[in-house]
């Protein structure tokens, strides 16, 4: 546990030291939202707004997963291999990725609200939407962390993450988009809140599965 928190803090410290990595993700999210505003030329209708939100979140997640983490470099991995147990490694990586993604999804929702309006949602629904985004971000982070580790080990570059990841995240995306559609079309949060439970359950299930499988990936 101590090791996990140390590793996560270490990772975040590294992120802060070379801020350009995270900043490029932030710029990506802001720029896509702004481009959407330019293309649409005004406030979109709620369903378009919903689609844009999830698509940008999804691509941000892919971009975030495609950053090269230091422990994927061969030399560092050899060192990590002897010092950090793989289970600690996957928890730390997933947490680190999730924290980044949660921050990014908050920023994304803010940017969406700034440029494209709130998609006709009341305050409660916006918080519900944010909760859905955060849970989706965690689910995407845990799936893509495992896959990026896998494609790093395969030595096939990060194009493979996208090829393998896109179909695998479909269940999460299906639940979250239907949740978002409910919210923007005026369904009360209470009537569609079960989608949040499904999202949370799926995220946890994927996290546990990654936890079981990662050691097999990690060893050489």
């Amino acid at each position, binding site marked *: 546990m101590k090791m996990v928190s140390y590793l996560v803090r270490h990772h975040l410290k590294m992120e802060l030291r070379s801020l350009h990595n995270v900043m490029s993700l932030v710029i990506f999210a802001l720029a896509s939202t702004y481009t959407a505003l330019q293309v649409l030329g005004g406030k979109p209708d709620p369903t378009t707004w919903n689609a844009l939100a999830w698509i940008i979140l999804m691509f941000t997640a892919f971009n975030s997963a495609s950053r090269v983490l230091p422990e994927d470099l061969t030399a560092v991995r050899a060192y990590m291999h002897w010092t950090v147990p793989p289970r600690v490694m996957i928890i730390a990586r997933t947490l680190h990725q999730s924290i980044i993604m949660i921050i990014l999804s908050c920023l994304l929702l803010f940017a969406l609200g700034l440029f494209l309006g709130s998609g006709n949602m009341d305050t409660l629904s916006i918080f519900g939407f944010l909760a859905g985004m955060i849970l989706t971000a965690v689910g995407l982070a845990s799936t893509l962390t*495992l896959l990026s580790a*896998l494609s790093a*080990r*395969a*030595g*096939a570059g990060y194009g*493979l993450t996208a*090829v*393998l990841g896109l*179909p*695998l995240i*479909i*269940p999460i995306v*299906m*639940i979250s988009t*239907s949740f978002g559609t409910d919210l923007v079309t005026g369904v009360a949060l209470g009537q569609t809140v079960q989608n949040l439970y*499904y999202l949370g359950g*799926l995220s946890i*299930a994927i996290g546990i*599965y990654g936890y079981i*499988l990662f050691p*097999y*990936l990690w060893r050489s």
Partner: protein
Amino acid sequence: MNFILKNWWNILGVGLIMYVFTMVFMVPMGPGLLSADSSVDSVSVATIEVEGFATHFESAPDQIRAFLRTDQSEIIIECEVVEVVSNSEVILSTTMPSAAPSHSWDLLLNSKNDGTLFLPNALYHKPLIKAVPNNGSIELNEDELFKTDLGLHFPYQPRIIESIRNLMLHVPMWFTMFLLMGIGFAQSIKTLRKGGNNLLHDSKAVSSIKVGIAFGVMGLLTGSLWARFTWGAWWVNDPQLNGALVSVMIYCGYLILRSSIANRSQRARLSAVYSLFAFVILMVLLMILPRFTESLHPGKSGNPAFSKYDLDSSLRMVFYPAVIGWMLIGTWMYNLCLRTELLKEKIQTKKEY
């Protein structure tokens, strides 16, 4: 004799599939009513043109009796047969009562060769008074009607009609795919347990998944054909269909992953990890997600396939052998694929040294 004993399950599989194809194309469809064209004139005389499917009206035109009843069976009135146009078309007429509890009427048509046929909501007529009348309704005596033994036939179902035969091809494809992906799942676990050094399990996993993908693609194609007939489009945006397509795509990703790793034992280990992941997502996509969402696909809310009461005995007689037969054929294909896989490996190692 030795050959038969050794290959009994191959022979059984081929035999079952031959039986299934014979039955699928030879068993006739049972009769049913396709549609009714009705009009009611100013003096409440209704004329109904009934179109039947696989019916034999002309063989005994005098022995056709037709009844209209309201949807809760409060009133039953008998219709007069005006004209039998052809084997599949008959014109009826009757005087509508001025008082009726509802305005939608179901049609019952009894004839000597087809038994009793039923068409819900055949006629709409707004009654003058919305009430249950005291007289005018007749008692329908079951014994007076013909009970016909039609012999072996597939049941008529509205909109599905002849395409019910696709049941024996479409559904077993998915069952077989699940079986093969299950084999792939088990073999992947074994690969990981053996630490990636035992490559036999990996070869088993990849060959079962390859054959599984083939069955999945066949399932998609037969499903698409069925969708064109019953829903009017080759593809509809539906959770069950999307789930099926995505799960086939996920397993194609498995093959892409394998082809991108050169080291043999690393390939075994990494692709095993991916395949375990893929199997769980397959289960989520095809078994769990469709139960929470609305879908056109039959058997929703509880069971993502046909529910029990949709299958009658004649369908079961073909459906169960079809499932077993396709599964046997699938396992046979898996065995052949495994053998080529192992031979390829042998050639590969010979080349390397």
